[in-house]
């Protein structure tokens, strides 16, 4: 009988209790007030709302907590709580909440304050998700990375220049070639994106007329809205072959379409809007009085920009570049499709190299067993990546914030 199953399923029961609480508490508030409405400290509806939340929130909370306890237990191979006991525990929490709320709904009870406290607790719970996400990220990576370092020496991981995973075991898993590829690609991307983005921002904020701005700004924003997989495909089918046929092969620098240069250039295009919009904000926050002061001394616009605006905006621009560097280091799809898969320590930008993110993808989507170091190394790589980008972001935020305080 599916109807019985549904009726006795936990969500339906809990919501049913909540609605029951709402109706009963409202009725009771009406009854205690009688004809004399003014004796109530709150509207009857507020009593109902309070009862509704008094059932729902503790029930959902206890369900989440008990399930967590159960699944942690199961991970260790112990059934600490059966499904049945969770069912009854949650249901009794809901029932207690319901009865308690109904009993409380008498004339003197400030039900609106109580129900708003429930809502506020929901808001706080929602805010906690952001923190829980960070904790989740750290925990998941630390947990699995520890497993990895139990099987693989951390000194080899950090300082070895050899990356050669082998599904039969005995793999060399040194991060240095991957780190090198990551930094090399990011460097080329920034070397392209920073001048272009910065000059574009300067031109748009200091020179361009209204019409030019209304065309160029949205155009650059479109670049920002394009998903990275599109840039990846662009690297794969257009930029890679182009660079190979017109630069790498004629110059005798190799014949691979996927290369550090391919990925770096395409990632550079992706970063242009990022650099230019951040720089634009920062350049615009330099007070007009500074520009006027310089122009009134007979400086040209470019002299004003180079000698006054840029030095004044420098901390902010450095912050923006650091944020862009964080993006570049963490970017995945462009390097997966554009940079190649071979771990290599080389200076030749037309050679295929690989990055941390590429190897995270390949180690986690491969066929190796999950508990093997070849798979677990992905978590150590992820942790490295997280620490790197977090460091860059915190540094950038500190610099930008300092800079903002300077002018506001």
């Amino acid at each position: 009988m599916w109807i019985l199953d549904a009726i006795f399923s936990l969500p339906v029961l809990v919501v049913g209790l909540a609605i029951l609480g709402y109706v009963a508490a409202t009725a009771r508030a009406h009854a205690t007030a009688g004809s004399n409405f003014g004796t109530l400290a709150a509207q009857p509806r507020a009593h109902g709302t309070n009862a509704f939340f008094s059932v729902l929130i503790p029930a959902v909370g206890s369900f989440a907590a008990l399930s967590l306890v159960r699944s942690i237990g199961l991970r260790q191979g112990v059934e600490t709580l059966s499904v049945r006991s969770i069912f009854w525990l949650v249901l009794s929490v809901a029932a207690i909440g319901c009865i308690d709320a109904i009993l409380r709904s008498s004339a003197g009870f400030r039900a609106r304050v109580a129900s708003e406290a429930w809502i506020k607790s929901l808001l706080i719970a929602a805010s906690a998700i952001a923190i829980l996400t960070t904790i989740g990220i750290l925990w998941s990576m630390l947990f699995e990375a520890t497993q990895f370092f139990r099987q693989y020496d951390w000194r080899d991981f950090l300082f070895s220049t050899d990356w050669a995973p082998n599904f039969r075991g005995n793999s060399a898993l040194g991060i240095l070639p991957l780190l090198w590829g990551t930094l090399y690609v990011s460097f080329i991307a920034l070397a392209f994106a920073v001048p272009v983005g910065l000059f574009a921002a300067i031109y748009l904020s200091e020179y361009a007329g209204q019409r030019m701005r209304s065309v160029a700004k949205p155009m650059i924003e479109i670049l920002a809205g394009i998903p990275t997989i599109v840039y990846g495909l662009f690297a794969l089918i257009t930029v890679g072959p182009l660079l190979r046929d017109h630069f790498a092969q004629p110059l005798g620098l190799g014949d691979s379409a996927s290369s550090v240069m391919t990925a770096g250039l395409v990632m550079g295009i992706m970063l242009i809007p990022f650099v230019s919009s951040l720089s634009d904000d920062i350049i615009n926050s330099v007070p007009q009085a500074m520009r006027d002061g310089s122009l009134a001394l007979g400086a040209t616009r470019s002299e004003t920009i180079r000698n006054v605006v840029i030095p004044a905006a420098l901390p902010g621009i450095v912050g923006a570049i650091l944020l862009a560097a964080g993006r570049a280091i963490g970017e995945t799809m462009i390097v997966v499709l554009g940079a190649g898969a071979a771990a290599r320590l080389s200076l030749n930008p037309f050679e295929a190299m690989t990055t941390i993110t590429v190897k995270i993808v390949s180690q986690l989507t491969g066929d190796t067993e999950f508990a093997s170091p070849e798979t677990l190394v992905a978590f150590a790589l992820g942790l490295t990546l997280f620490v790197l980008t977090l460091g860059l972001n915190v540094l950038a935020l500190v610099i930008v914030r300092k800079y903002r305080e300077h002018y506001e």
Partner: protein
Amino acid sequence: MTARSHSLLVQDARTRRRNAAEARFRVYGLGAISVAALALVVLLSSVVSSGIGAFRQTYITLEISLPEAKLDKSGTRDPEVMAKVTTFGYAPLLQDALLRTMEQSGITTSLSAADVGKIISKEAAATLRDHVLANPDLIGGSVTLDVLAEGRIDGYFKGRVTLESAALDANTSPEALRIAQGLADAGVIETRLNRRFLTAPDASDQRPEAAGLGVAILGSLYMMLVVLVLALPIGVATSIYLEEFAPRNRLSDLVEVNISNLAAVPSIVFGILGLAIFINFAGLRQSSPLVGGLVLTLMTLPTIIISSRAALKSVPPLIRDAALAVGASRMQAVFHHVLPLAAPGILTGTIIGLAQALGETAPLLLIGMVAFVRDYPAAYTDEAGLFAEAATALPVQVFNWTQRADPGFVERASGAIITLLVFLLAMNAAAILLRRRFERRW
């Protein structure tokens, strides 16, 4: 002290030099913008030019005879019995039909019958089998059906494959292309609009001509639903708390720093989180839109929170004060007065966050959405639960196709990107319209 000429009407050498430097500086700026514009144009045109072909497909119209002796020896027309005849039983019928059509059109060839049969897609046999199983009465007679041409033939009519390239290709030959051209002249082969590209499921490595985006679009749709249902309320609640209620202390500072950091965490890290927490720890199903949606929710939350807070902040304090002054509680002031005014801004931010999530690829690879899926996932099944059947997503499908050997998949991948970009364009247009329509200046 100064060598400056005293007349303003005469430009001295230094000023000329400085003005030249000024002009150069302007050129650099214009150059930077042109580089960005050029990159955008080349990017879009390269994707569109290589992908637009995916929306057209080459079909062969064949009259196929369906002998009872081969398809239903028992003569019962019982689908269960007939299902025993596999696609291998149907392929020769297609080949015969093609040879007969060639004869009628007066095309002769030196190719063997088997090689001529390769002009037809391997998918065609399955199409014919499904058609016959659905209409058992056709057996004994004949049926006229439009079947897919093989990928190379399709490529020939789209200009991707030429007689020269075919000479070097083990999978086709210039002679096969000549036959195809003859059939096209006779009106048997036609290249026309390909609706199946948006509805059909993926196809195997050998059949780029049959591959479609149906499963991927459905999977993306499911994930967007999950993201919308979770990220919007959580994001709005978080921003209301932080903007309206949170006391200014270390803890709320921590939450704020935390959110701005999450916004900058590489997306692939969210994939690691999803794999470790949702799949390994919580035991949710790999490749399921539910896990994908959860991961994308966590990834999108910072975007939604940041834009929602901006929207709440833009509602002037006057409105709150007015509500409080007539005796509303803080909570009532926020929910009855501030939130409705901030709603357009919040929605705009949500749409932009959704668009970001729709295009995201890397975290989905880690939670197994890269798998080959041919069955349309159901939204709900009893044994699996909500959004738990394996699916794939639009951007992941693109990645998947780039990993295949057959060059026909490059066209498919680019076509999928055009589809993705059209969705994104629609979403962003909606966001812009919403902003225009409800924009309020205080």
